[in-house]
């Protein structure tokens, strides 16, 4: 086990642990913040797999934009009830089923990957420079990319329409 792997394992444990906390925390804002940790750790993982560009996008989009959005949403949807009693179960009745399903899914996927890619190794090539990604994106993937921009625009418009309050519709 070389140094990269050691760092990767540490980041993995960090990511998984904070994800677990994010999904179980009673405090909603804490949950969002734990998610930041997870996403950051995953970005670190990306770096370790030499996909720097993706890692930066991850940090910019997820940690920078998405989480901020989530925190805003959480604050906007504060309910009076929650402030009064923090003991309200933040999880629903079927959490045991959900837990079992989560474990089964994780174990099943893990077992499958172990069975399928047990001995495979990632070579240390640099694959994820901005140049190579840009090259691929604007040659082979240009059409999906343009379509995606349309999708993003539509989502933008949709979000605006949806979030306008009923009175000025």
């Amino acid at each position, binding site marked *: 086990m070389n140094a990269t792997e050691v760092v990767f394992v540490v980041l993995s444990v960090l990511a998984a642990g904070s994800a677990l906390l994010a999904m179980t925390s009673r405090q909603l804002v804490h949950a969002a913040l734990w998610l930041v940790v997870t996403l950051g750790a995953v970005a670190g993982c990306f770096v370790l797999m030499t996909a720097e560009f993706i890692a930066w996008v991850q940090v910019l989009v997820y940690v920078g934009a998405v989480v901020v959005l989530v925190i805003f949403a959480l604050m906007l949807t504060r309910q009076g009830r929650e402030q009064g009693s923090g003991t309200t179960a933040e999880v*629903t009745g*079927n959490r045991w*089923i*959900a837990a079992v*399903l989560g474990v*089964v*899914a994780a174990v*099943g996927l893990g077992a499958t990957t172990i069975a399928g890619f047990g001995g495979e190794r990632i070579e240390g090539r640099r694959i994820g420079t901005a140049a190579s990604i840009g090259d691929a994106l604007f040659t082979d993937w240009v059409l999906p990319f343009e379509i995606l921009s349309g999708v993003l625009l539509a989502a933008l418009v949709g979000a605006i329409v949806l979030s306008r309050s009923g009175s000025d519709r």
Partner: protein
Amino acid sequence: MIRRWGYVGITAVLAVVVAIWAVPELGRDTVTFVTIGQTGPDGGPPLPSLSPDLLIYPGTAQILLLAVGVGLLVQIYSTAYLGHHPRYRSYALVIVLFLIAMIAVVGTTNLWVLLVGWEVMGLCSYLLIGHEWESPVARAGAAKAFLVTRIADLGLVMAIIVIGETYGTYDIVGAQVAQSEQPRHATLIGLLVLVAVVGKSAQFPLHTWLPDAMPGPTPITALIHAATMVAAGVYLAARLFQLYADSQVVLTAMAVVAAITMLMGALFAWVQTDLKRALAWSTVSQLALMLAAVAVGDPEAGTDHLLAHGVFKALLFLGCGCVMLAVGSSALSSMGGLRRRMPVTFWTMTAGFAALAGLVPTAGFFTKDSVLHAIERATDGDRGLAAGTAWVLLVVALVTTFVTAAYATRLWVLTFFGAGHGAGPHGTLGQDVREAPLAMAGPLVVLAVATFALSVGQPLHLGTGLLSTVIAVAGVAAVLVAARRGSTLAWAPRPLAAELWLDRPFSRWILALGTGASRVVVELDREVVDVYPRGGESLAATISRGLGLAQSRNVQRYATVLAVGVVMLVVIGVVVS
């Protein structure tokens, strides 16, 4: 008025037609068929049909003439007795329908035609008893009469079916021919016929409807419930006698029924306080006498007495109607001392009572004598009936003769003598008590003459004749002596006055049973039988609720179910592969 006589005209035409047809047969010895039915193609009986097969022999002709004769007289009588009635049209037309049905019953040789006539008679009886349907008593009496007779008629229906299956024909003559070759099922047929006869002729234990039928108009009582329809039961027993003559069981049962009924009827007639009801019980008793004749193997004697009884009982009832019209009631307490005011009624009814009591020289004496003689002959035990049974029957018949003479005298005395004792509500006879109009008195005279005329040519049996005369005279004399000594002739022990409580099963128990059962059925229908549709309903509702649980309107549950499904599919896919 003219319309009323129109119905008389219709009846007269009917009577003349029947007379033209029947009178020539009176003296004939041979039997005349009009047509005869044939058996079915496969040896079994054909499907029922109403073929116009007719069979006439002297006895038939006599009864036909009796029916149309009494019918005509009753129509004439009714013009005066019931002429004011608003529903005279339906009344008169139903009488005509009744006569046609009676002719069908008597004249046909096709059992189905007989059945149709038989039931139509029952229906007419029902309609006529209930003619005064405003009165609850009449309604109840009509319903009871119809129910009892119709239930008993099921015996006739089954008897006809059995006869058809046994002998392969629904023709009486055909069945008799087949029976003479190989008799079968005699006991079954006989018992079924007996059920029908017991119902129609008001014999024990189905006798209670006849006295209750008395709310009907009195002319109807005279025609249907004395002369013809009730007698048709005996006629049927005589007509089908050959088919069950071999069965001692049937004959014994018939004898027992007859013995019980004749004595019981006579005793009940004695205790009545109502003239009409007393005459009704007397009819029951006399019908039993005829049935006894059939039981001892001499149906001829039975039909002879039927004929005589038809005449004098019609006379008595019509006379009773005259009296009722005069005093306004049929209660004996409102009568008495009527002989001066109503001489025609008095003398004609005297003849009728004499015939009922069996005094010489009325027809009643001779025909009753024939019956007694037949019973006496049966005591030697070789005529199908055991000697012991015949002896008992003879003794009962003689006792009945005594009682009959006694109650006839009692009724006669209470109606016409006593110089107004208990007459009217005011103690004296009212001014409106006078002789009946001609249209009513005329038929009485005709019938009274017939009472004597029918005795012409009747056989006389010296032994039984003397014996019965002595007994009858003793009965008459005993009552007369008692009356002379000032007795009110009101000796009525409680069991007899209550008619032995024999009506109770009919008036209470069966009614209660039927009502209770019907309530139970309706409840069961609603609460129990309806369970499966309701069960289906609630099952569907439950299933839909169960499936509705999945439609929780909760995104997470949907997602959970979805995830479970995906995981299971994957697991299954992995396991299978």
